[in-house]
């Protein structure tokens, strides 16, 4: 048998797990001098494969396990391993596709809280090893005259992810990673309520903070490159009943304090800010 054919056969056997499909490969195995059956020895690779991948998912998704409960979580892992074999040589990225798999899969896509938790935990993992940048202190704004403020735009840390999640996701996550996590987190009553979250990295560790709806909109627009003055004009701020520039300045200050901002620039006269999408 050619090496390529042998490797296809071996891989099929590992992916399928022990069963009828093993027969052609078992004929190719030498007998063990220690009395182990060929099925047992092949099983080292078959079971090791699933255990290893399951461990990657478990490490990255303690909150998802808590939300689903152990049995359903293991069923999800089995589905994911069966349907989305790893294609990245770096094991770190095996779990990256899990939230998208859940959204595509009829078994899991209607569980909004589980999908939300998977999205949140993926953002936490992604933030952990995102590219390095140096955050700016709020004092960086002192370089700009008040006349420039409406045209200021900001660059954000590459670790930053903004999420709209099912309400209760963060409370469930906090409970799941607490020192004495419950066996299973009680799911809140199903609703269309949402919560907004920023995930980024601070001092080498992933961090997260819930956002008010207006801050979430402002942060989305600011990260899209829209200027301070344009964001002030947005409906979200007009409806908040506050003086828009002050509320936005408050948000901006917290983004600096949180270490989310890595650059400030003045949009040029010839480079007008695009119209904010939610204005």
């Amino acid at each position: 048998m050619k090496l390529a054919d042998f490797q296809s056969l071996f891989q099929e056997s590992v992916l399928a797990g022990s069963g009828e499909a093993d027969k052609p490969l078992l004929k190719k195995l030498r007998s063990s001098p220690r009395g182990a059956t060929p099925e047992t020895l092949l099983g080292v690779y078959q079971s090791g494969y699933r255990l290893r991948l399951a461990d990657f998912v478990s490490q990255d998704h303690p909150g998802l396990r808590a939300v689903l409960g152990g049995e359903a979580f293991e069923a999800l892992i089995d589905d994911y391993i069966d349907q989305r074999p790893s294609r990245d040589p770096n094991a770190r990225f095996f779990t990256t596709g899990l939230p998208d798999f859940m959204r595509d899969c009829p078994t899991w896509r209607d569980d909004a809280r589980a999908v939300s938790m998977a999205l949140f935990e993926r953002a936490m993992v992604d933030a952990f090893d995102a590219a390095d940048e140096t955050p700016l202190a709020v004092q960086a704004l002192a370089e700009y005259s008040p006349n420039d403020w409406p045209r200021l735009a900001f660059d954000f840390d590459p670790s930053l992810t903004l999420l709209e999640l099912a309400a209760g996701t963060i409370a469930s996550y906090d409970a799941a990673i607490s020192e004495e996590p419950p066996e299973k987190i009680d799911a809140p009553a199903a609703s269309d309520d949402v919560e907004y979250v920023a995930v980024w990295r601070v001092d080498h560790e992933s961090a997260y903070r819930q956002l008010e709806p207006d801050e979430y909109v402002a942060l989305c627009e600011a990260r899209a490159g829209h200027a301070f003055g344009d964001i002030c004009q947005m409906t979200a701020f007009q409806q908040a009943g506050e003086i828009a520039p002050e509320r936005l300045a408050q948000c901006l200050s917290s983004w600096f304090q949180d270490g989310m901002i890595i650059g400030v620039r003045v949009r040029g006269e010839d480079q007008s800010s695009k119209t904010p999408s939610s204005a």
Partner: protein
Amino acid sequence: MERPAPLGYGLGLRPVYYDEILASRPPIDWFEIISENYMLAGGKPLAMLDRIRADYPVVMHGVSMSLASTDPLNVDYLRQLKALAERVEPAWISDHVAWTGVHGVTLHDLLPIPYTRESLAHIVERIQRVQDFLKRRLVVENASTYVSFVDSEMSEHEFVREMAERADCLLLLDVNNVFVSSFNHGFDPVAFIDGVPAERVVQFHMAGHTDNETHRVDTHDQPVCDEVWALYEHARRRCGDVSTMIERDDNYPPFLELLDELQHMRDIDARLSNERARSAA
């Protein structure tokens, strides 16, 4: 045969020990990293590695080069590996006599091959291409295996010897892997060590494994067992002054226990050195 200078007694760098290493600067001569764990855009792993690299020599050990796979070499992977090597400046880069998947799939395991002329020609050609790409000699390790194949045309050590000579690569002799595979397949581990070209061996791996009675599995979650220590002595006698280290990847003990294992290694080597001095006198 020009070989890199021996580094002494090393340890596999694992995140669970970052704080202890940075706080205590332990008496370890060098660290080995799992390359893929640092093939990232940024963040804590690379920051910790930079700090540790400032004080210790480092070698890069990969698990995903898939040298024996019949898939095309993953050039994107090799580019990332090369970029990491430019940052780390490792003493050498290693991977395994193994494949990890075909048809674009990766099983995240070091999978066995039949030791045939075809497999040999295939891996030799790929090692040469990797060496050309990385512009350095690759160090290739014998893997633990749990199955062997009726199609094999030579022993594992014959395969490894010819591979190293034809590809002109260096070798990482995993003493625990020799023991595990010899147990599982019924060959003589001493004959294996005697059969590989000692002048190409630049590094030893030492680790623990799991004894399942009818077969042993390379789990790196136990201390090194007595049989493997005995085999280490033989490897040391045969290969001389070679960089050596402990791998631990699960069931992590207090850091001091790993330092004790390194000290045990030093004690064995000191005894062997004294024996050589006495017999030379």
